[in-house]
Structure formats: C-alpha cells, structure tokens
C-alpha cells in the first residue's frame, strides 16, 4: 500500500470494524429491551389463521426454542454476531421459511442498481453544472441555477418523489406509478424486460437526482472558484488553448477530486433517502422489503435489512477514504 501509511490504514480499519460491530450490537439489543415477545407474535399469527390454538404454552416454548430466545443472552449474541458475518439472519417470520438472506439478495440488486444509476447521473450533471456556474463563457442562464440548486438540495427525496409521481405518473401517466417492472413482463434478459425496468426506474431515479445534483453543483462551484485563479490556468490561457479544452482538461479535472471525498460523507444519507423513495414507489428494493417487514413485524428481516444497509454505508466510506490517494496523488494521508 505504497501511498497509504500503515497507521492510517489501521485506524480506518478499526473504525470500520467498530462501526459494523456497534451497529450490529445495537440492532441486536433493541428488540431484546422491548416488552414484545416475538414468540407471542408468532403465536398470535397462528391464532389469527386457525381461530384458536390448543396447548399454547407448549407451542410458545417450542417457538422460543426454535427462535433460540430461550438461551442465555451471551450465547444468543455470539450466535447472532457469527451469523451476521456470513449474512445469516435466520428465517423470515412473515415469509416463513424463506431465509432472510434470500429475501435480501433478491432486493439488493434493485437498490444497488438504482443507487449507482442515480449517483452517476447526479455526479455528472451536478459537477458539470457547478463548473459552468463559474466558467466565464457559460450562458448567463446557468447562474440562475444556483439558487434553484440550493433550494432543491434542502428537500428530502421523498417530497420530490411524491411531486414527480403525481405529475408524471398520476396526472400525465407517462410513467408507471409503482413497481420496478411491469406486471406482465417475466424477469429475464430480454429487451422488453430491460425496457420495462428502465421505464419504471426513471421516476425513482429522477426524484433522487433532482434533490442531490445541487449538492454536487454547489461543491463544484466552490472548488472551481479556487482553481480559476491558479497559475496553470493562466498559463494555459496565455498559450492560447481553446477555452473549452481548458475547462475540461485543466479546470474540471483538478477541481473534481475533493468531490469524491464529499461522496463519502453523503452516502449514509443518500441510502436512507433512497430507502424511503423505494417505499413510496413500491420499488422492489430494500426499501419495500423493509416496509413490508415493518408491516408484518418481521424482525429478522428488519434487522437484516438495517444491517446490510449499514454495512454498505460503512464499506463505501472506508473504500473512498482508501482510494482517494490513488485518485489524487497530491494527497497524502497523515498518519494517526
């Protein structure tokens, strides 16, 4: 790891492991502090299905043994942590006996796909717009975008999602209201399916894009103002290079680097916001899985989804921190 000092790497690794461990522990402790007994919920579900349940005491004891909640807390905790390491969160109680990991694996690609797509779009649009705000040859109209970008940045994506849903799905009916693909399309690698996915994913992605591009644009604007005064830009201008060439190859290229660390700070909020967008669009990702699990009091799923999202967040922050010196050779991490 040439550019990364060992002390820094160890420090980041410790933080990463601690983050995951603490998050996993909190998620485990909370339901155990609650007066609600998961075995009784399961029994209640049985009773709701069957009318009355005979010898309920025995069933309760058996359910507790199945769920492993009759064992001492330390044993339970150890089992849970070792399970979480290999993404084993037990079986879903609502979709019994599907393992939680299967449900998550089905939902995760949708969430990651939507996230990566909307991130790429906002990163591109936001940074380009931010750069154009500063560039003295860009049309005056771009400057109007500054307050607009600021206002949009202050709004959480569920609000933009609701507005877009209403205008483009309910009113104009250009896009479908909910879901990740059409009801009559078989999930497979056919053009019809891909088309349906894109059609369904457009609004959720757009609602994230319009509230996050401002964040990148404003950050880029600040960075570009700094780069504008640099000597190498002056030199490039004096050499008579084309302004557009200077903009892309000299200014944006240098200004864009700190934006990547900004990404690390934002990612937690982005994922949480996206979970909510998925919930209102009933998009087949983690957000919908989480919402359905909340409705059904399906604790293993709630825990699993929360754990996986926290894991993704922590890992992304960690990776961005480590990759950064490779992207920008001028930066060296201070040890410690």
């Amino acid at each position, binding site marked *: 790891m040439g550019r990364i000092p060992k002390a820094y790497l160890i420090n980041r690794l410790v933080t990463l492991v601690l983050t995951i461990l603490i*998050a996993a522990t909190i998620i485990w402790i909370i339901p155990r502090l609650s007066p*609600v007994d998961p075995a009784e919920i399961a029994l209640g579900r049985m009773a709701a299905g069957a009318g009355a349940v005979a010898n309920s005491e025995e069933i309760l004891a058996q359910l507790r043994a199945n769920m492993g909640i009759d064992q001492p807390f330390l044993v339970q905790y150890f089992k849970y942590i070792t399970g979480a390491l290999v993404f084993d969160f037990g079986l879903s109680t609502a979709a019994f006996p599907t393992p939680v990991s299967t449900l998550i694996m089905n939902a995760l690609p949708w969430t990651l796909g939507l996230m990566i797509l909307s991130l790429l779009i906002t990163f591109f649009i936001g940074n380009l717009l931010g750069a154009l705000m500063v560039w003295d040859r860009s049309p005056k109209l771009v400057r109007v975008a500054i307050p607009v970008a600021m206002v949009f940045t202050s709004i959480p994506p569920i609000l933009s999602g609701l507005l877009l849903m209403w205008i483009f799905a309910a009113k104009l009916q250009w896009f479908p209201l909910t879901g990740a693909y059409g009801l009559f399309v078989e999930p497979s690698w056919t053009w019809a399916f891909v088309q349906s996915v894109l059609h369904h994913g457009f609004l959720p992605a757009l609602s994230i894009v319009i509230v996050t591009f401002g964040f990148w644009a404003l950050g880029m604007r600040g960075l570009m103002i700094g780069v504008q005064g640099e000597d190498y830009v002056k030199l490039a201008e004096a050499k008579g290079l084309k302004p557009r060439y200077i903009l892309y190859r000299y200014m944006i290229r240098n200004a864009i680097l700190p934006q990547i660390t900004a990404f690390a700070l934002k990612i*937690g909020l982005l994922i*949480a916001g996206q979970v909510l967008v998925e919930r209102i669009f009933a998009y087949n990702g983690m957000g919908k899985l989480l919402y359905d699990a909340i409705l059904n009091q399906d604790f293993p799923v709630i825990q699993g989804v929360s754990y996986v*999202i926290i894991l993704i967040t922590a890992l992304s922050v960690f990776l961005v921190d480590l990759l950064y010196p490779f992207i920008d050779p001028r930066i060296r991490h201070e040890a410690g």
Partner: protein
Amino acid sequence: MATQDQIPPTRAERRQARRIRRFDNPWLNPKLLWGAGFLVGIIILGLVGRMLWDLELVFTGSSPLKLPPIGFENLRGQPGVLEHPLGTDGGGRDLLALIIIGAPNTLFVGLLASLIGMSIGIFLGFSAGFLGGRVDDVIRVGADVMITIPPLLILVVFQSAFGDVTLTMMALLIAGFVWQSPTRLIRAQVLSMKQSGYVQMAQLSGASTGHIMFREMLPNLVPYLFGSFIASVTTSIVTAVGLEVLGLGPQRIPTLGRTIYEAINAGALIQNLWWWWGLPTLLLGVIFIGLLLINLGLDEVSNPRLRRLS
C-alpha cells in the same frame, strides 16, 4: 462582484447599500430573517390556529370524506366547502386541523432532538478538544463510528420493536444520532483555539477549565454552533419524517409525515386527492427551505467575505 466601483450604481446596488446602512448588524441579513420568518410562520400557524379553529375536526370521521379545498372539485364533483377550507382526507379529518397540529409537531421534534444533540455535542466536543489524550481518543472514535450509521435504520428497528412512541420519545431517540457532527466540529475548533493567545493567557492567569471553556471559548463559537444546530434540525426532521412515512413514529398524534403515509396507503395519488399529501408536502418544503435560508444567512454571519454589496 467587479461592478462595485462602477458609477453610477444600479438600483439593486443602491437598495443593497441602503439595506446595509440600516442593518449594519450581520445577524439581520435578509436570508436569515426570511428563513426565521418561515419557521416562525409555522409556529404562529400552530398557535393562532389552535385558538381560531375547531381542533375536534382532527379526529377520524369528524367531517365528510375526501372533500377538496375551496375552489376545487373532487372526482365525485363535490366542491370545496367553507367549513373545511383545505379539504378533508380519506378518514374524514379536516386537513386544516391536521396541519395546525401536525406542522408544529414536526418542527418540535426537530428542534428538541437537535437541542439535546447539540448539548451532547458541545459537552463532548469541548471535552475531547480540551482534555485530549484518552478522552479525546474515545470521543473521536465514537463520533467517527456513529457518523457512518444512518439513524433512520437503527430507529426503524427501535420503533418496530417498541410500537407506539410519543413525540418527545422520538425526539430523544433522534437526538442519539445528531451529536456526532457538532462534536467533530467543536472539537476541531477547540483544538485550533487552544493555541490562540487569549486562551493561553487565560490559562496562565489561572482561570479554571470551566471558565476557559465556557466564558472564553464558547462565545467565539456561537455562529458555528447555530449553523451546526440548523443542520442537525434538518437531519432530525428528515429522519422523523422518514420514520413517519414508513408508518412508524407516533401513531395517534398527527404529524406531517404520518399524514403523507396515510395518503400514500389510501392511494391518494391515483384518486387525485392531491391536497391530502400535497399540503403536508408543501409545509415540509416551507420548513426545509426556511432552514436552508437560515443556514445561508448564518454562513454570512460567520464568514464576512460572503457579505457582498452587489
């Protein structure tokens, strides 16, 4: 920017100059005033509304269902009526009453959560920056760890385990996740201030640690503290609304997020009941834009270079 020394000044410039003469106080900049005005407006809506409007209408079934606001028609062709100027929802609740109670509730959760979070942040940030050593290590790592955990997900686990919560309880829970940023910010500021002359002077003259922390250093941090406070109010409200939209949060107290949750669940988008989800959304927008304006205004207070004439 360069137009400053052009003669004659434009109308906007003269107006700005007049404004600056009148309010030579950075705390009275227009952004800050407008932002504060938006939030005060929400509070006044709650206070005055409570006096003037019949709050019994907030109960389910107290009014006809799905009436539109005045001047509009719903899908059944019913016009809006004066008794329910903002319309009613699918459960027969008056939206004006819902908003009068719900909007201040949302603001209350945000303010209370960040007030507590800030207090924790100030305490921990000062301790870490001032005492250093082991204490600093523990607090710094703790803040670094907690800052990557999205509060929403932990709170989802909590609230689905415990069921119904009160507004105050929810604020307390959210407060557990908004202390990290202020802690880091204050720690960094304290570390740099510790080296400054006046603090070292105070130390040499034998002032107590408490005196140095709160009488010498804290006043210099006020604009940062306000900025950080507003940022955490935004985070708290976003988190609270997120929980409410997932159907968690207080179950029996009207909040803006819960109204949106009920509207989505009842298919208000398909039924074109735009006022049901639209009015809470609009009010949340007002709150967020108000907070943004306050934040921009505070930036001008703490960073005088942002104060411009043109």
